Protein backbone atom coordinates (compact mmCIF):
# COMPACT_ATOMS: atom_id res chain seq x y z
CA UNK A 1 0.00 0.00 0.00
CA UNK A 2 1.45 3.35 -0.97
CA UNK A 3 1.50 6.49 1.16
CA UNK A 4 -1.52 8.03 -0.55
CA UNK A 5 -3.52 4.81 -0.03
CA UNK A 6 -2.80 4.98 3.68
CA UNK A 7 -3.93 8.61 3.83
CA UNK A 8 -7.11 7.81 1.90
CA UNK A 9 -7.90 4.90 4.18
CA UNK A 10 -7.47 7.08 7.23
CA UNK A 11 -9.75 9.67 5.65
CA UNK A 12 -12.35 6.97 5.06
CA UNK A 13 -12.06 5.70 8.64
CA UNK A 14 -12.47 9.22 10.04
CA UNK A 15 -15.49 9.85 7.82
CA UNK A 16 -17.10 6.63 9.06
CA UNK A 17 -16.48 7.63 12.68
CA UNK A 18 -18.27 10.93 12.08
CA UNK A 19 -21.02 9.07 10.26
CA UNK A 20 -21.58 6.65 13.17
CA UNK A 21 -21.71 9.59 15.57
CA UNK A 22 -24.35 11.34 13.43
CA UNK A 23 -26.39 8.15 13.17
CA UNK A 24 -26.23 7.80 16.93
CA UNK A 25 -27.35 11.41 17.30
CA UNK A 26 -30.32 10.66 15.07
CA UNK A 27 -31.28 7.65 17.20
CA UNK A 28 -30.90 9.61 20.42
CA UNK A 29 -32.92 12.45 18.92
CA UNK A 30 -35.72 10.01 18.20
CA UNK A 31 -35.61 8.52 21.70
CA UNK A 32 -35.60 11.94 23.32
CA UNK A 33 -38.66 12.96 21.32
CA UNK A 34 -40.61 9.76 21.90
CA UNK A 35 -40.01 9.84 25.66
CA UNK A 36 -39.76 13.62 25.95
CA UNK A 37 -36.45 12.89 27.65
CA UNK A 38 -34.87 16.26 28.29
CA UNK A 39 -31.63 14.81 29.63
CA UNK A 40 -31.09 12.87 26.46
CA UNK A 41 -31.93 15.99 24.43
CA UNK A 42 -29.23 17.88 26.35
CA UNK A 43 -26.78 15.09 25.58
CA UNK A 44 -27.60 15.38 21.85
CA UNK A 45 -27.04 19.13 21.94
CA UNK A 46 -23.69 18.65 23.66
CA UNK A 47 -22.54 15.95 21.25
CA UNK A 48 -23.29 18.25 18.34
CA UNK A 49 -20.01 19.97 19.21
CA UNK A 50 -18.20 16.73 18.44
CA UNK A 51 -19.92 16.54 15.07
CA UNK A 52 -18.73 20.07 14.33
CA UNK A 53 -15.20 19.20 15.39
CA UNK A 54 -15.22 16.23 13.02
CA UNK A 55 -16.37 18.48 10.21
CA UNK A 56 -13.41 20.81 10.70
CA UNK A 57 -10.98 17.93 10.96
CA UNK A 58 -12.21 16.21 7.78
CA UNK A 59 -12.08 19.51 5.91
CA UNK A 60 -8.48 19.94 6.96
CA UNK A 61 -7.59 16.34 6.11
CA UNK A 62 -9.01 16.77 2.60
CA UNK A 63 -7.16 20.05 2.16
CA UNK A 64 -3.90 18.39 3.17
CA UNK A 65 -4.38 15.50 0.76
CA UNK A 66 -5.08 17.92 -2.09
CA UNK A 67 -2.03 19.99 -1.27
CA UNK A 68 0.43 17.21 -0.53
CA UNK A 69 -0.60 14.32 -2.77
CA UNK A 70 -2.36 15.90 -5.77
CA UNK A 71 -4.83 13.01 -6.01
CA UNK A 72 -6.09 12.12 -9.49
CA UNK A 73 -8.93 10.18 -11.09
CA UNK A 74 -10.67 7.87 -8.58
CA UNK A 75 -8.56 9.26 -5.71
CA UNK A 76 -9.52 12.81 -6.64
CA UNK A 77 -13.18 11.87 -6.84
CA UNK A 78 -12.98 10.13 -3.46
CA UNK A 79 -11.57 13.19 -1.69
CA UNK A 80 -14.13 15.44 -3.41
CA UNK A 81 -16.91 13.06 -2.34
CA UNK A 82 -15.70 13.01 1.28
CA UNK A 83 -15.59 16.80 1.29
CA UNK A 84 -19.27 16.91 0.35
CA UNK A 85 -20.37 13.99 2.53
CA UNK A 86 -18.69 15.78 5.41
CA UNK A 87 -20.94 18.76 4.72
CA UNK A 88 -24.03 16.60 4.50
CA UNK A 89 -23.24 14.89 7.80
CA UNK A 90 -22.66 18.16 9.59
CA UNK A 91 -25.99 19.45 8.28
CA UNK A 92 -27.79 16.35 9.55
CA UNK A 93 -26.12 16.96 12.90
CA UNK A 94 -27.67 20.44 12.88
CA UNK A 95 -31.13 19.08 12.12
CA UNK A 96 -30.94 16.62 15.00
CA UNK A 97 -29.76 19.37 17.31
CA UNK A 98 -32.82 21.37 16.28
CA UNK A 99 -35.04 18.43 17.18
CA UNK A 100 -33.33 18.08 20.57
CA UNK A 101 -33.87 21.78 21.26
CA UNK A 102 -37.54 21.28 20.58
CA UNK A 103 -37.69 18.45 23.12
CA UNK A 104 -35.95 20.67 25.63
CA UNK A 105 -38.42 23.51 25.15
CA UNK A 106 -41.67 21.61 24.77
CA UNK A 107 -44.29 21.59 27.56
CA UNK A 108 -44.66 18.39 29.47
CA UNK A 109 -48.34 18.22 28.49
CA UNK A 110 -47.36 17.78 24.84
CA UNK A 111 -49.85 15.46 23.17
CA UNK A 112 -47.80 12.43 22.21
CA UNK A 113 -50.67 11.16 20.06
CA UNK A 114 -49.54 13.75 17.52
CA UNK A 115 -46.34 11.78 16.97
CA UNK A 116 -48.43 8.84 15.95
CA UNK A 117 -50.86 10.54 13.58
CA UNK A 118 -48.17 12.53 11.80
CA UNK A 119 -46.12 9.31 11.36
CA UNK A 120 -43.06 11.13 12.66
CA UNK A 121 -41.78 7.95 14.32
CA UNK A 122 -41.97 6.16 11.00
CA UNK A 123 -40.04 9.04 9.46
CA UNK A 124 -37.32 8.73 12.06
CA UNK A 125 -37.01 5.01 11.37
CA UNK A 126 -36.84 5.59 7.62
CA UNK A 127 -34.22 8.33 8.00
CA UNK A 128 -32.14 6.11 10.26
CA UNK A 129 -32.45 3.27 7.82
CA UNK A 130 -31.34 5.44 4.91
CA UNK A 131 -28.34 6.69 6.82
CA UNK A 132 -27.28 3.16 7.62
CA UNK A 133 -27.77 2.04 4.04
CA UNK A 134 -25.57 4.84 2.67
CA UNK A 135 -22.95 4.18 5.30
CA UNK A 136 -22.86 0.52 4.28
CA UNK A 137 -22.51 1.55 0.62
CA UNK A 138 -19.63 3.86 1.56
CA UNK A 139 -17.93 1.20 3.64
CA UNK A 140 -18.25 -1.55 1.02
CA UNK A 141 -17.82 0.80 -1.94
CA UNK A 142 -20.96 -0.70 -3.42
CA UNK A 143 -23.10 1.57 -5.60
CA UNK A 144 -25.97 -0.93 -5.80
CA UNK A 145 -26.46 -0.47 -2.06
CA UNK A 146 -26.21 3.31 -2.46
CA UNK A 147 -28.96 3.25 -5.08
CA UNK A 148 -31.41 1.70 -2.59
CA UNK A 149 -31.84 5.00 -0.77
CA UNK A 150 -33.48 6.69 -3.74
CA UNK A 151 -36.41 4.35 -3.19
CA UNK A 152 -36.33 4.68 0.59
CA UNK A 153 -36.48 8.46 0.36
CA UNK A 154 -39.90 8.27 -1.26
CA UNK A 155 -41.48 7.26 2.05
CA UNK A 156 -40.08 10.37 3.74
CA UNK A 157 -41.33 12.57 0.92
CA UNK A 158 -44.75 10.98 1.11
CA UNK A 159 -45.12 11.47 4.88
CA UNK A 160 -43.85 15.02 4.56
CA UNK A 161 -46.44 15.91 1.93
CA UNK A 162 -49.32 14.42 3.89
CA UNK A 163 -48.22 16.07 7.13
CA UNK A 164 -49.58 19.48 6.10
CA UNK A 165 -53.23 18.51 6.09
CA UNK A 166 -52.87 16.32 9.18
CA UNK A 167 -51.31 19.18 11.12
CA UNK A 168 -53.91 21.66 9.83
CA UNK A 169 -56.73 19.36 10.97
CA UNK A 170 -55.15 18.91 14.35
CA UNK A 171 -54.74 22.65 14.86
CA UNK A 172 -58.40 23.22 13.99
CA UNK A 173 -59.45 20.72 16.63
CA UNK A 174 -56.85 21.71 19.25
CA UNK A 175 -56.40 25.49 18.93
CA UNK A 176 -54.82 25.58 22.40
CA UNK A 177 -51.81 23.55 21.27
CA UNK A 178 -50.67 25.47 18.17
CA UNK A 179 -47.06 26.18 19.18
CA UNK A 180 -46.11 22.58 19.80
CA UNK A 181 -47.91 21.42 16.68
CA UNK A 182 -46.05 23.87 14.48
CA UNK A 183 -42.80 22.81 16.09
CA UNK A 184 -43.60 19.26 15.16
CA UNK A 185 -44.19 20.31 11.57
CA UNK A 186 -40.71 21.78 11.53
CA UNK A 187 -39.34 18.46 12.81
CA UNK A 188 -41.05 16.68 9.96
CA UNK A 189 -39.47 19.12 7.54
CA UNK A 190 -36.07 18.48 9.13
CA UNK A 191 -36.45 14.72 8.81
CA UNK A 192 -37.41 15.15 5.18
CA UNK A 193 -34.19 17.12 4.74
CA UNK A 194 -32.21 14.33 6.42
CA UNK A 195 -33.54 12.05 3.68
CA UNK A 196 -32.38 14.52 1.03
CA UNK A 197 -28.92 14.73 2.58
CA UNK A 198 -28.67 10.94 2.67
CA UNK A 199 -29.63 10.88 -1.00
CA UNK A 200 -26.95 13.46 -1.75
CA UNK A 201 -24.40 11.27 0.01
CA UNK A 202 -25.50 8.27 -2.06
CA UNK A 203 -24.98 10.40 -5.19
CA UNK A 204 -21.47 11.30 -4.03
CA UNK A 205 -20.62 7.62 -3.53
CA UNK A 206 -21.83 6.82 -7.04
CA UNK A 207 -19.87 9.80 -8.36
CA UNK A 208 -16.63 8.64 -6.84
CA UNK A 209 -16.96 4.97 -7.77
CA UNK A 210 -18.61 5.21 -11.19
CA UNK A 211 -17.64 8.78 -12.17
CA UNK A 212 -21.31 9.51 -12.88
CA UNK A 213 -22.94 12.75 -11.85
CA UNK A 214 -26.49 12.07 -10.68
CA UNK A 215 -27.38 15.36 -9.10
CA UNK A 216 -30.52 16.98 -10.47
CA UNK A 217 -31.41 13.83 -12.42
CA UNK A 218 -34.76 12.01 -12.46
CA UNK A 219 -35.27 8.87 -10.37
CA UNK A 220 -35.28 6.65 -13.45
CA UNK A 221 -31.90 8.02 -14.57
CA UNK A 222 -30.42 7.60 -11.12
CA UNK A 223 -31.16 3.90 -11.03
CA UNK A 224 -29.38 3.22 -14.32
Amino acid sequence: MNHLDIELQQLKAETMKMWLLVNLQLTKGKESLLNLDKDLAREVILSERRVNAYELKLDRDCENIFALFNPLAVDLRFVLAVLKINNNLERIGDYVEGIAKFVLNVDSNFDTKLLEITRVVEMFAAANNMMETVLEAFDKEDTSIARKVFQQDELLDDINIKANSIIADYIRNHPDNIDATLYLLSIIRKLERVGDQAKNMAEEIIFYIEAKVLRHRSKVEKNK
Partner: protein
Amino acid sequence: MYKIESKNVDFFYGASQALKNINIAIKPNTVTALIGPSGCGKSTYLRLFNRMNDLIDNTKIAGQVLIDGEDIYAKGVNVDSLRKKVGMVFQKPNPFPKTIFENVAYGLRVNGITDKKLIEERVETTIKQVVLWDEVKDKLKKSAFELSGGQQQRLCIARALAIQPSVVLMDEPTSALDPISTAKVEELIYELKTKYTIVIVTHNMQQAGRVSDTTAFFYMGELIEHDTTKTIFTNPKIERTQNYITGRFG
Protein backbone atom coordinates in the same frame (compact mmCIF):
# COMPACT_ATOMS: atom_id res chain seq x y z
CA MET B 1 -7.55 18.86 -40.83
CA TYR B 2 -5.04 17.40 -38.42
CA LYS B 3 -1.60 18.89 -37.98
CA ILE B 4 0.04 15.58 -37.14
CA GLU B 5 -1.28 12.10 -37.77
CA SER B 6 0.29 8.74 -37.23
CA LYS B 7 -1.29 5.74 -38.85
CA ASN B 8 -0.45 2.18 -37.79
CA VAL B 9 3.06 3.15 -36.81
CA ASP B 10 5.47 0.40 -35.79
CA PHE B 11 9.04 1.16 -34.88
CA PHE B 12 11.98 -1.17 -34.33
CA TYR B 13 15.43 -0.82 -32.78
CA GLY B 14 17.07 -3.76 -34.52
CA ALA B 15 14.88 -6.74 -33.74
CA SER B 16 13.15 -5.22 -30.74
CA GLN B 17 9.87 -3.48 -31.38
CA ALA B 18 9.62 -0.15 -29.56
CA LEU B 19 6.26 1.01 -30.89
CA LYS B 20 3.27 -1.10 -31.82
CA ASN B 21 0.58 0.12 -34.15
CA ILE B 22 0.29 3.70 -32.89
CA ASN B 23 -2.60 5.76 -34.20
CA ILE B 24 -2.89 9.35 -33.03
CA ALA B 25 -4.31 12.47 -34.65
CA ILE B 26 -3.26 15.87 -33.32
CA LYS B 27 -5.14 19.09 -34.06
CA PRO B 28 -3.25 22.28 -34.86
CA ASN B 29 -2.55 24.76 -32.04
CA THR B 30 -2.95 22.23 -29.30
CA VAL B 31 -0.59 20.80 -26.70
CA THR B 32 -0.40 17.02 -26.54
CA ALA B 33 1.31 15.38 -23.58
CA LEU B 34 2.88 11.95 -23.95
CA ILE B 35 3.08 10.12 -20.62
CA GLY B 36 4.11 6.65 -19.51
CA PRO B 37 6.84 4.87 -17.57
CA SER B 38 10.46 4.95 -18.72
CA GLY B 39 11.01 2.78 -21.76
CA CYS B 40 7.37 2.87 -22.85
CA GLY B 41 8.26 4.41 -26.21
CA LYS B 42 7.00 7.94 -25.72
CA SER B 43 10.32 9.67 -26.50
CA THR B 44 10.88 7.34 -29.45
CA TYR B 45 7.46 8.32 -30.70
CA LEU B 46 8.18 12.03 -30.23
CA ARG B 47 11.42 11.76 -32.19
CA LEU B 48 9.58 10.28 -35.17
CA PHE B 49 8.01 13.66 -35.91
CA ASN B 50 11.28 15.30 -36.93
CA ARG B 51 12.97 12.07 -37.99
CA MET B 52 15.51 12.25 -35.19
CA ASN B 53 15.47 8.47 -35.01
CA ASP B 54 17.06 8.42 -38.48
CA LEU B 55 20.31 9.24 -36.69
CA ILE B 56 20.25 5.91 -34.86
CA ASP B 57 21.61 2.90 -36.75
CA ASN B 58 19.57 -0.17 -37.48
CA THR B 59 16.12 1.30 -36.88
CA LYS B 60 13.03 0.68 -38.96
CA ILE B 61 9.63 2.32 -39.19
CA ALA B 62 6.41 1.00 -40.66
CA GLY B 63 3.14 2.87 -41.12
CA GLN B 64 2.71 6.54 -41.86
CA VAL B 65 3.50 9.79 -40.07
CA LEU B 66 1.75 12.74 -41.68
CA ILE B 67 2.45 16.39 -40.95
CA ASP B 68 0.11 18.82 -42.71
CA GLY B 69 -1.19 15.80 -44.59
CA GLU B 70 2.19 14.83 -46.04
CA ASP B 71 3.96 11.60 -45.25
CA ILE B 72 7.28 12.72 -43.76
CA TYR B 73 8.82 9.29 -44.34
CA ALA B 74 7.92 9.22 -48.03
CA LYS B 75 10.75 9.03 -50.53
CA GLY B 76 12.20 12.36 -51.57
CA VAL B 77 11.27 14.19 -48.36
CA ASN B 78 13.88 16.79 -47.47
CA VAL B 79 14.75 16.13 -43.83
CA ASP B 80 16.35 19.56 -43.38
CA SER B 81 13.18 21.37 -44.38
CA LEU B 82 11.16 18.98 -42.22
CA ARG B 83 13.28 19.95 -39.22
CA LYS B 84 12.80 23.60 -40.04
CA LYS B 85 9.10 23.03 -39.72
CA VAL B 86 9.39 20.81 -36.64
CA GLY B 87 11.58 22.30 -33.91
CA MET B 88 12.75 20.45 -30.85
CA VAL B 89 13.67 21.21 -27.23
CA PHE B 90 15.51 18.66 -25.12
CA GLN B 91 15.55 17.53 -21.52
CA LYS B 92 18.76 19.30 -20.57
CA PRO B 93 19.34 22.82 -21.80
CA ASN B 94 21.97 22.47 -24.53
CA PRO B 95 23.01 25.92 -25.69
CA PHE B 96 25.90 26.07 -28.15
CA PRO B 97 29.25 27.35 -26.87
CA LYS B 98 28.49 30.71 -28.43
CA THR B 99 27.08 34.04 -27.35
CA ILE B 100 23.45 34.38 -26.33
CA PHE B 101 22.77 36.26 -29.55
CA GLU B 102 24.52 33.71 -31.78
CA ASN B 103 22.62 30.82 -30.20
CA VAL B 104 19.36 32.24 -31.46
CA ALA B 105 20.82 33.51 -34.74
CA TYR B 106 22.43 30.15 -35.49
CA GLY B 107 19.40 28.52 -37.11
CA LEU B 108 18.88 31.55 -39.30
CA ARG B 109 22.50 31.60 -40.47
CA VAL B 110 22.62 27.91 -41.33
CA ASN B 111 19.45 28.44 -43.28
CA GLY B 112 21.26 30.96 -45.43
CA ILE B 113 19.89 34.20 -44.01
CA THR B 114 22.59 36.88 -44.19
CA ASP B 115 20.58 40.08 -43.80
CA LYS B 116 22.06 41.48 -40.58
CA LYS B 117 19.06 43.62 -39.76
CA LEU B 118 16.60 40.77 -40.31
CA ILE B 119 18.67 38.52 -38.07
CA GLU B 120 18.82 41.15 -35.33
CA GLU B 121 15.11 41.70 -35.51
CA ARG B 122 14.29 38.02 -35.47
CA VAL B 123 16.63 37.34 -32.53
CA GLU B 124 15.05 40.13 -30.52
CA THR B 125 11.42 39.14 -31.21
CA THR B 126 12.14 35.51 -30.48
CA ILE B 127 13.92 36.21 -27.20
CA LYS B 128 11.01 38.46 -26.27
CA GLN B 129 8.63 35.67 -27.22
CA VAL B 130 10.19 33.36 -24.63
CA VAL B 131 10.07 36.20 -22.06
CA LEU B 132 13.83 36.28 -21.68
CA TRP B 133 14.58 39.66 -23.22
CA ASP B 134 14.61 41.76 -20.03
CA GLU B 135 16.99 39.29 -18.44
CA VAL B 136 19.53 39.14 -21.29
CA LYS B 137 19.22 42.31 -23.37
CA ASP B 138 22.35 43.83 -21.82
CA LYS B 139 24.50 40.74 -22.23
CA LEU B 140 23.68 39.41 -25.66
CA LYS B 141 27.39 39.19 -26.47
CA LYS B 142 28.15 37.09 -23.43
CA SER B 143 28.38 33.31 -23.48
CA ALA B 144 25.12 31.42 -23.18
CA PHE B 145 26.75 29.33 -20.45
CA GLU B 146 26.60 32.33 -18.13
CA LEU B 147 22.83 31.99 -17.95
CA SER B 148 21.01 29.95 -15.30
CA GLY B 149 19.58 26.55 -16.24
CA GLY B 150 16.08 27.95 -16.59
CA GLN B 151 17.31 30.84 -18.74
CA GLN B 152 19.33 28.45 -20.87
CA GLN B 153 16.26 26.31 -21.48
CA ARG B 154 14.22 29.33 -22.54
CA LEU B 155 17.11 30.32 -24.80
CA CYS B 156 17.00 26.87 -26.38
CA ILE B 157 13.27 27.29 -26.93
CA ALA B 158 14.02 30.66 -28.57
CA ARG B 159 16.63 28.93 -30.76
CA ALA B 160 14.01 26.42 -31.85
CA LEU B 161 11.44 29.13 -32.53
CA ALA B 162 13.76 31.49 -34.43
CA ILE B 163 13.46 29.51 -37.66
CA GLN B 164 9.68 29.78 -37.33
CA PRO B 165 8.59 26.15 -37.11
CA SER B 166 4.91 25.24 -36.88
CA VAL B 167 5.43 22.22 -34.64
CA VAL B 168 7.51 22.22 -31.45
CA LEU B 169 8.55 18.95 -29.83
CA MET B 170 9.63 19.03 -26.20
CA ASP B 171 11.29 16.08 -24.50
CA GLU B 172 10.92 16.59 -20.74
CA PRO B 173 11.79 20.27 -21.10
CA THR B 174 11.61 21.11 -17.39
CA SER B 175 12.94 18.00 -15.71
CA ALA B 176 16.25 19.73 -14.98
CA LEU B 177 14.72 23.01 -13.86
CA ASP B 178 13.68 24.46 -10.50
CA PRO B 179 9.98 25.19 -9.81
CA ILE B 180 10.16 28.86 -10.80
CA SER B 181 11.89 28.17 -14.11
CA THR B 182 9.45 25.29 -14.65
CA ALA B 183 6.51 27.62 -14.11
CA LYS B 184 8.00 30.07 -16.62
CA VAL B 185 8.45 27.38 -19.26
CA GLU B 186 4.93 26.05 -18.64
CA GLU B 187 3.50 29.56 -18.94
CA LEU B 188 5.44 29.89 -22.17
CA ILE B 189 4.03 26.63 -23.54
CA TYR B 190 0.54 27.93 -22.81
CA GLU B 191 1.24 31.11 -24.76
CA LEU B 192 3.03 29.38 -27.65
CA LYS B 193 0.00 27.20 -28.26
CA THR B 194 -1.69 30.02 -30.16
CA LYS B 195 1.01 29.83 -32.85
CA TYR B 196 2.39 26.32 -32.71
CA THR B 197 1.34 22.73 -32.33
CA ILE B 198 3.21 21.35 -29.36
CA VAL B 199 3.95 17.77 -28.37
CA ILE B 200 5.56 17.31 -24.98
CA VAL B 201 6.97 14.26 -23.23
CA THR B 202 6.74 14.61 -19.46
CA HIS B 203 7.09 12.47 -16.37
CA ASN B 204 5.36 15.09 -14.29
CA MET B 205 1.63 14.29 -14.14
CA GLN B 206 0.71 17.71 -12.80
CA GLN B 207 2.64 19.33 -15.61
CA ALA B 208 0.75 17.29 -18.18
CA GLY B 209 -2.44 18.40 -16.45
CA ARG B 210 -1.46 22.05 -16.45
CA VAL B 211 -0.14 22.49 -19.96
CA SER B 212 -1.80 20.00 -22.28
CA ASP B 213 -5.12 19.74 -24.09
CA THR B 214 -4.89 16.04 -24.75
CA THR B 215 -2.83 13.33 -23.11
CA ALA B 216 -1.65 10.04 -24.57
CA PHE B 217 -0.63 7.24 -22.23
CA PHE B 218 1.97 4.79 -23.55
CA TYR B 219 2.87 1.47 -22.01
CA MET B 220 5.38 -1.06 -23.37
CA GLY B 221 5.31 0.40 -26.86
CA GLU B 222 1.54 0.58 -27.07
CA LEU B 223 -0.78 3.53 -26.96
CA ILE B 224 -3.14 2.60 -24.14
CA GLU B 225 -5.36 5.65 -24.07
CA HIS B 226 -5.52 9.05 -25.77
CA ASP B 227 -8.18 11.51 -24.67
CA THR B 228 -8.67 15.05 -23.45
CA THR B 229 -6.37 15.76 -20.53
CA LYS B 230 -9.38 16.46 -18.35
CA THR B 231 -10.78 13.00 -19.01
CA ILE B 232 -7.44 11.25 -18.51
CA PHE B 233 -6.89 12.91 -15.13
CA THR B 234 -10.42 12.74 -13.75
CA ASN B 235 -11.93 9.64 -15.27
CA PRO B 236 -9.66 7.56 -17.51
CA LYS B 237 -11.50 4.79 -19.29
CA ILE B 238 -8.80 2.17 -18.98
CA GLU B 239 -7.70 0.80 -15.64
CA ARG B 240 -4.03 0.69 -16.57
CA THR B 241 -4.10 4.45 -17.23
CA GLN B 242 -5.74 5.04 -13.87
CA ASN B 243 -3.17 2.88 -12.11
CA TYR B 244 -0.36 4.81 -13.73
CA ILE B 245 -1.58 8.33 -13.06
CA THR B 246 -2.55 7.50 -9.47
CA GLY B 247 0.87 5.97 -8.85
CA ARG B 248 -0.31 2.38 -8.37
CA PHE B 249 1.73 0.86 -11.12
CA GLY B 250 3.12 -2.63 -11.32
